[in-house]
């Protein structure tokens, strides 16, 4: 069986869970013997190399096979962007740089005509990148052989539809997040339309949680019967290299950690409001906000406004070993997301044996039992639970130990098996039986 996979980011160049998820999933699917051609926009910066060698090709080139990815080949389309707003939030949303050339297919036009060059909430040339990705994809598709098209998140849906239409192969759309998660009620209509079109066109929709399935069904009007929930996994670092460096614990202070993009979706202001309440009851607590985003500066000001500036540390964007260090220092990890399709970060925290508190508006809250859960807006309960973890060692110990063992239940191998099952299901459907049923 061969899959033509369309993605937008891949470690080490990631801005969120999407790249991590694609990495874990393709690796595990490779282990199942599924051959995958993975198409990416061109990586932005390229001096460091992770487990995957990112090739900086113009247009498309089949990558050499790399460790752990024996069955996966990579293609890249030059692109300069991250999918979601990150790092520098004050990036101007300028006018588009004029019309594209060489567009294939009508969906491209529809995207562009409505966007009229300006896409709110997204870096200014996002639309162009998506367009470019879509237009290049058919060239690659013609030289590749595959049974099924698998597109990850909205940026690749137009490309996925194009390939499916031109080849007649089934399309799987994999929803790692939706416009509803990212922007709440302030939807970007263009992005929403692309998502909706992709989901409706697809033969199957994979979501990372029931939480997201509900959004797909209720806000995008997708038939629940074609939606399949497949939870993400977490990498278990069994390559012998320990992630645990020796970070000195802070003897004086307890540390409560927020780690993620500082954007509306992640609920940073609720974290700070809860922090203020915690500090009414417990001294010697520091609140660390690791990450960056369009709300960073506002949050620095907000902390000062709440009178807790001296107790809140902003680390800005962390990478690699620094992420591990942040986890190791923490006495509690808090994910106050307003809407979180899955939430790999709490699993990462548990990997580092840090107790977790997650918002109920998340996919992970459905499946993780040894975690504290609150509504993101309920800062009262959030503070109450933070205090409890800091105050009662037994609680923290149980959450840490039981949660750590529970973390091992989330395996990419299991996710891969389920994805494979979805492939098989689609390929044995009457419409696709002809010629493809023998995989």
């Amino acid at each position, binding site marked *: 069986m061969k899959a033509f996979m369309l993605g937008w980011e891949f470690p080490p160049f990631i801005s969120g869970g999407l790249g991590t998820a694609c990495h874990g999933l393709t690796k595990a699917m490779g282990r199942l013997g599924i051959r995958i051609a993975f198409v990416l926009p061109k990586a932005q910066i390229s001096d460091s190399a992770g487990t995957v060698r990112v090739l900086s090709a113009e247009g498309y080139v089949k990558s050499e096979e790399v460790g752990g990815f024996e069955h996966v080949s990579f293609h890249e389309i030059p692109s300069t962007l991250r999918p979601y707003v990150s790092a520098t939030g004050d990036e101007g949303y300028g006018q588009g740089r004029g019309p594209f050339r060489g567009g294939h297919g009508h969906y491209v036009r529809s995207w562009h005509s409505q966007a009229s060059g300006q896409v709110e909430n997204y870096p200014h040339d996002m639309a162009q990148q998506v367009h470019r990705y879509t237009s290049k994809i058919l060239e690659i598709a013609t030289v590749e052989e595959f049974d099924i098209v698998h597109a990850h998140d909205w940026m690749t849906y137009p490309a996925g539809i194009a390939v499916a239409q031109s080849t007649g192969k089934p399309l799987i759309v994999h929803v790692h997040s939706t416009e509803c998660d990212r922007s709440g009620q302030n939807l970007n209509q263009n992005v929403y339309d692309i998502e909706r079109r992709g989901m409706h066109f697809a033969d199957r929709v994979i979501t990372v949680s029931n939480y997201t399935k509900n959004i797909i069904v209720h806000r995008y009007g997708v038939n629940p019967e074609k939606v399949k929930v497949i939870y993400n996994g977490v990498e278990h670092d069994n390559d012998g290299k320990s992630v645990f460096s020796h970070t000195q614990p802070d003897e004086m202070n307890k540390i409560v950690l927020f780690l993620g993009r500082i954007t509306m979706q992640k609920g940073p202001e609720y974290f700070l409001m809860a922090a203020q309440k915690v500090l009414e009851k417990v001294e010697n607590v520091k609140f660390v906000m690791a990450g960056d985003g369009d709300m960073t500066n506002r949050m620095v000001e907000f902390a000062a406004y709440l009178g807790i500036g001296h107790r809140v540390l902003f680390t800005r964007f962390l990478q690699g070993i620094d992420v591990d260090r942040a986890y190791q220092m923490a006495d509690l990890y808090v994910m106050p997301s307003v809407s979180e399709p899955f939430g790999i970060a709490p699993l990462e925290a548990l990997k580092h044996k840090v107790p977790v508190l997650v918002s109920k508006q998340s996919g992970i809250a459905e499946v993780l*039992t040894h975690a*504290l859960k609150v509504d993101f807006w309920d800062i009262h309960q959030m503070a*109450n*639970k933070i205090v409890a973890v800091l105050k*009662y060692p*037994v*609680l923290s110990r149980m959450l840490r130990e039981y949660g750590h063992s529970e973390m091992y239940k989330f395996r990419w191998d299991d996710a891969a098996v389920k994805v494979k099952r979805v492939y098989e299901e689609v390929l044995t459907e009457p419409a696709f039986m002809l010629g493809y049923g023998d995989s």
Partner: protein
Amino acid sequence: MPSICFYFQVHQPFRLRKYTIFDQDSDYFNEDKNAEICERVARKCYLPSNLLMLKLIRQFEGTFKIAYSVTGTLLEQLELYAPGVLASFQKLASTGCVEFLTETYHHSLSFLYSREEFVEQIRLHGQTIQRLFGQKPRIFRNTELIYNNDLASAIDQIGGFDAIMVEGADHILGYRSPDFLYRPPNAAGLKLLLKNYRLSDDIAFRFSNRDWCQWPVTSERFASWINAINGNGHVVNLFMDYETLGEHQWEDTGIFRFMERLPSEILKHPDNNFKTPSEVVAAYDAVGEFDVPYTISWADIERDLSAWRGNPMQENALHRLYALEDHVKATNDPDIIADWRRLQASDHFYYMCTKYFADGDVHKYFNHYDSPYEAYINFVTVLDDLYSRCAVRCPPRDCKILPQDEPASDIKGLKSEVKGRKPEYERLKSEV
């Protein structure tokens, strides 16, 4: 023979409200919820069941008999929220065919943590039963049938009891049958009534289970199982939660119809009869020794303490609770003492159980918390407030600091366990 001995456990705890560190008041209990549940269970179970029992007792003119153990915490709630139920229990008491047992007033685990409190609660419950039902209880049942040899000797020391209700646990009984009376190895004056858990659970748990090969069980068939024991047992002890009737097994399962017909089916066989626990004790001798060096209970498949003491949170919460005892009592404040006692109900610790947490099952059904962690946080937050109230009332120099976590998490429990094994040690020594 055999005699049928029905005993129903009747209990509701005072459930806590959502209490956080930011709460300034000291109202710990969720009155609305407790009232709502009490009224609901009264409507679905207590009232119709009491009515049925009363009818059966009249119909069989004194040959149908049953026993109840009603906890103090429920009696208080009935007085508040469902006085009709209390009145109907009193009516039952006056028939002479109903026996009331005694237990720890607050359905507590005090036996495992504080002997002083244990004795006090038994006394309190006995008085309440006497006041409300005009009976002086002669039979003891401990919370959730928690039992070991030490409990027998403790009850023996208190005096005034003829027998204790015990789970007929297979791993203690071995090849022996639960359908006889036994005696503890270390308390000659007491007899033990062993629950026949197979037949009890056929009603309490399996009655409405359509996957069970015996479903649907009729009163006729159930009576035939009882008849099969004839000649091979003195008494069949059917112990179960009263809420089985109408609440755990809903009315539409046919449970009331089953109960209504059961006495006549059973009495069809001339050798069968119904007896209260005291009558059973008077009628039969103990046939052997039931030696329980380790603690057993009627809970879950393990029949041990793991439903209440199975994880560090539960141990910690219990330890903290009983560590407050001297402190609470020193205040002499009836409100503080009452709150502390209500917190002792075993239910609070059951809510913190993580045993079947992942699968979700019977534990979940009885649990109003989203998770065991919530239950723990709520409980210890309340406990901290109680502690600060004690500190206000009681001069600080007398107050020991609230014991912090880890060290020797339940010294008192361990001590009582060691004490519990002492008679066995003596016995073994004398054997040698």
